[in-house]
């Protein structure tokens, strides 16, 4: 058991994060945190000593105080909740459509011929370039954000689903067919698991685009959400709230990324890169 775990972790070091977990607890695990900690201390010290005007960058302690203030008033929870649900609904809508197209184009040449070229053409439009048009269509209501986020997450999920299905080992497909697998059984037992690593890569890319799109959209045109909170704070020179909003965006991005990592580790436990030990 230990022998196996060692071999596995010895074989793949590329994806550090998942496998390097135990070392984080050791003294050596502190090293990566030394630099950010130092920066934080210098930042706090120079602000306290008056070297750093609060109008440029507020001290970490002030950002914390702002967080506490907004938490108590409920503003923070409301705006974060609004941003989160926009992100989630955009991901679900765009992701579902993209996954469907990826599936049908991956599985059917006819479907691919009918839609793939069009999708590849639309892909060249940067989604943020659509903002003026989207504001004309939807105003600054929820529809605008939903559209932009869906549009942004569509392409990474589509392309990676399509690619994942097309690159499933044809020898495995032939093997399964020879044992009577076809249709949905073939899809569920061979094609989907074979395409899953690629699909999850697409999901991770999509999450990055999802936050970026949302931040920009909320900053330019919104009446709620974290981006709106940051923009209205700017009008009142509340740099502490602006910095807080930025940090929360970073935190939410990190949470989303970790969620995908958990999904990867659960659903790809067979994959040497994600495996921790023997299957029970």
């Amino acid at each position: 058991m230990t022998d196996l775990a060692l071999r596995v972790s010895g074989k793949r070091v590329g994806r550090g994060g998942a496998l390097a977990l135990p070392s984080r607890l050791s003294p050596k695990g502190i090293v990566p945190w030394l630099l950010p900690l130092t920066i934080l201390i210098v930042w706090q010290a120079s602000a306290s000593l008056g070297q750093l005007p609060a109008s440029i960058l507020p001290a970490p302690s002030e950002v914390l105080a702002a967080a506490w203030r907004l938490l108590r008033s409920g503003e923070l929870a409301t705006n974060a909740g609004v941003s989160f649900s926009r992100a989630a609904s955009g991901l679900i809508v765009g992701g579902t459509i993209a996954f469907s197209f990826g599936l049908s184009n991956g599985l059917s040449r006819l479907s691919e011929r009918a839609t793939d070229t069009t999708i590849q053409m639309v892909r060249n439009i940067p989604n943020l370039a659509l903002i003026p048009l989207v504001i004309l269509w939807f105003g600054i209501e929820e529809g605008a954000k939903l559209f932009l986020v869906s549009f942004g997450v569509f392409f990474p999920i589509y392309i990676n689903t399509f690619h994942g299905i097309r690159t499933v080992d044809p020898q495995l497909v032939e093997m399964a067919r020879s044992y009577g697998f076809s249709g949905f059984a073939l899809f569920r037992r061979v094609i989907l698991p074979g395409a899953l690593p690629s699909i999850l890569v697409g999901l991770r890319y999509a999450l990055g685009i999802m936050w970026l799109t949302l931040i920009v959209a909320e900053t330019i045109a919104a009446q709620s959400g974290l981006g709106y909170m940051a923009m209205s704070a700017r009008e009142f020179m509340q740099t502490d709230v602006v910095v807080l909003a930025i940090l929360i965006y970073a935190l939410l991005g990190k949470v989303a990324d970790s969620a995908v990592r958990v999904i990867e580790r659960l659903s790809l436990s067979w994959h040497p890169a994600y495996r921790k030990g023997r299957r029970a």
Partner: protein
Amino acid sequence: MTQTAFKQERVSAAGASVTLRGITRRFGNNSVLEGVDLDIKPGEFVAIVGKSGSGKSTLLRVIAGLDHDFGGALTIGGAGGVKTTARIMYQEPRLPPWASIIDNVAFGLGPTPSRQDALSKARNALEAVHLADRGPEWPDVLSGGQKQRVALARALVSRPDLLVLDEPLGALDALTRIGMQSLLENVWQEEGFTAILVTHDVTEALTLADRIVLIENGQIALDLDVPFPRPRRRGSVQFAALADELLSALLKSKSQTEEYVI
């Protein structure tokens, strides 16, 4: 090496008969099979040898039902006239890495076996290839020879009447290959299926087969009975003599697609 697990369940030992009449197959302008006639008796072990590119795999895919674009007549008679499905074993193990070893074996039962039944059958098949305790692990922890044993268990779990093997041991080292050969012979004797083995190894053909056929120019050029009693001893004089004869026939044979140009 005994297959007690399989023996207990055995209902009737019988293989399928295989009849080929004027089998032809062409890829574009390349005519690979040009009228192959072959009769294989139920339970017989036939080895197919021939130069690389002579059409051995093509013929095997026709027999296994993986290729339908051929000319001529193919008849596979199941035991007692029952329709059979051939099982094929490839040079690569072709084990989906996302299924545990036991689930890989259960693949051989098709898409809709009952879970309980599938697991117990798969466990028996794994036992027959001496991997009984490896069932819950992922296939990629196994060695090459062990993977081929899993593939063999998968091919056998549905108790086929006909097993076709396309150089299944070609990628294994010499020692592992000898172990696999005797495992294959044992399972074949226990199960009684008809076996058709493509191999480029003359010794392997002589060790395992009742009959050896040589494919040349898209036809059967030589059909040789192997009279030695089993288990066969590679060292014997008669064995060596037959190996010599076979090897020189192989070397003389000109494949349609020459491998080398001087």
